[in-house]
């Protein structure tokens, strides 16, 4: 399932429309300088469904989840929850390239010894 705006909003429970763009989250953030995209940009980029750059950015993992932005946001937007939701969505998607058991038989080479196949599964299951 592709990551979209609705998915992020659902996971986070955050309504970015509450944001009045005061920038107090970014003024508060202790990890600001290590980030490519800053807390207020997260809120605005999710609201504008501009997710591609966020999903690929290291900024997701720079957030310390210290919750200072949540504490100080005058409009209760909770930017840290939004960042957490994007991070979660990315992590969940990493599991999406697994094969289903039913798909396996068609892919198996009959020439290959059973033992080699089992070993390969063990080896590459991660």
């Amino acid at each position, binding site marked *: 399932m592709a990551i979209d705006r609705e998915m992020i909003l659902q996971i986070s429970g955050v309504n970015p429309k*509450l944001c*009045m*763009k*005061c*920038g*107090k*989250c*970014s*003024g*508060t*953030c202790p990890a*600001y*300088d290590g980030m490519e995209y*800053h807390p*207020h*940009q997260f809120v605005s980029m999710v609201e504008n469904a501009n997710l591609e750059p966020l999903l690929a950015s290291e900024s997701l993992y720079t957030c310390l989840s210290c919750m*200072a932005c949540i504490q*100080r*946001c*005058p*409009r*209760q937007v909770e930017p840290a929850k939004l960042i957490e939701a994007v991070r979660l969505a990315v992590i969940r998607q990493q599991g999406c390239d697994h094969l289903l058991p039913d798909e396996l038989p068609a892919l198996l080479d009959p020439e290959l010894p059973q033992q080699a196949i089992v070993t390969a599964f063990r080896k590459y299951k991660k």
Partner: protein
Amino acid sequence: MQKIGVFVCWCGSNIAATVDVAAVAEALGKQPGVVYATDYQYMCSASGQNLIKDAIRDYGLTGVVICACSPRMHEATFRKTISSAGLNPYMLEIANIREQCSWIHKDREEATKKAITMGTAAIAKVQLNTPLTQMKSPVTKRALVIGGGIAGMQTALDIADAGFEVDIVEKKPTIGGKMAQLDKTFPTLDCSSCIVTPKMVDTAANEKITIFSYAEVENVTGFIGNFKATIKQKPRYVDAEKCTGCGLCTTKCPSKKSLNEFNMGLNTRTAIYIPFAQAVPLVATIDPDACIKLKTGKCGLCEKVCEAGAIDYAQKEELIEREYGAVVVATGYNQIKPVQYEEYLYNQSRDVVTSLEFERLMSASGPTAGHLQCPSTGKLPRHIVFIQCVGSRGTACREKPYCSKVCCMYTAKHAMLVKDHYPEVECTVFYIDVRTPGKNFDEFYRRAVEQYGVHYIKGMVGKVEQGDGCLKVQASDLLDNRQLHLEADMVVLAAAIEPDPSARKIGTMLTASMDTNDFFSEAHAKLRPVESPTAGVFLSGMCQGPKDIPETVSQASAAASKVIGVLSKDFLLSNPCIAHSDPTLCNGCSQCQNVCAYGAISYEDQMVVDKGVRETRRVAVVNEAICQGCGACTVTCPSGAMDLKGFASNQIMAEVDAICN
């Protein structure tokens, strides 16, 4: 059986777009008693009103039903219309098919059906209407103004100018309010004291105005034209008649550690004090919480030095009863103490101040005599950071949801004043939006940026920390997309303004409605902005919502003109839709008396003839001058004796029946 005319208004497209008005007129025309039914584009227009008048004459109508907007909008208009055609004005019923039907529905068929039902109910009610006559009540030709700030003073001066007596009740020892504490005013930068102190003197000198300073309104009863107020005069422990305001006592008083309220607690004052040099009345007041004599019985220095013999430690609280025709609320505002904002260090650093405190620091009559100094070091600051919207425009529990309106302008003023006196001091303003709607306001703000070189940064301060001999400010710069780490010597917080805490009590006393922020509500947001929904109660200044001085003065004069409108009448016509009790049904239980919010119901012994038996019974009697027609007694009465004229129980039941059929 009444002869009823039904008039269905289109209200342009407001009603006609959703409701099939012709179908409504046709359906209602078939109702029993209806002899004429029509629809028209604008029933409230002159030609619409003529249509009604002509129909009353041509068809000999005895009752009128108008299907149109809310009765709050045009009931008075249409009552006048039918009255001018010879009908009793209370033979009118309005079915509100706009606010309660066309505006809230989308489906035309359903809305039309509902409009017909509402019209049918109104027809059923008007069948049972009886002609009512308005009562006359006399008007006490004196006004009460609660609060002696610029709003209260202006209102009082304007009312007095029209020749009526006014009492100002001010809880502080002096009138003048917040404006007397301000240094300069925007956008002209003229001295606040220089324009407000002459007003204070004028107010005191006006022979029509009586000032009750250091007094509070304890209770108000009555109704428009006939209010009775109890004013609590707090003891000053100084005879205001004898005191000359020489101030000798204040130089001798040994209790010197009370916080000076006039200087926002930035310095101290003595227990006997005169708030400031231009105070009106210029009279000393003893603070009973600090006075050594009042607390321990020993001292009495002020009494010894007072040449006028004005000190009176035995003074007692006094209750004064006065009568008024109208009441003006001018209770003003306070700036919040941003103690909950730990990130801004307001509690921890003396160099973090609110803007009203900064105003005192800049004022020539302030604790530093107008010399800008860091409160902690006494040195001139090198860099001042101004933070906007502290506590305003938020939804979290420590925030006010509204914009405090004046902060953008006074911050620009502060920065400009600093730059004017000390060009070497750097000023940085952190803003979310700069809101400058007003004459010459945006030009003023641009001048701060362009001519004075004040740094405006779009972003918010995240936190302020105590550094080594300075304050460390961490903030975002949203336009440059970077985080700033600045060093500042002072931080000024544009903290939110809120209504004075006394407002809630006064609102309850006057039964004047307030919003969730404790600002007084106006009767109509656009068309009646200076009146409270409670008749005879008017609003002046910040008590109704954030506003600057010119707006406050305009509203104060507007409120005064409304008061003059009331006081200039010899009699007021009251609402005849009031309660009355049937003595033969009344069982004397007193429940109606208990629920009456206006104290309009009393009990007396009356001779009652019931089923041929004469006997004396204790029955309810309604004072027609006080009853407001709220109907609380009619629903409480267990025996059905209490009924409301114009909204009688049988009329309401007829409406319900009409809807159910």
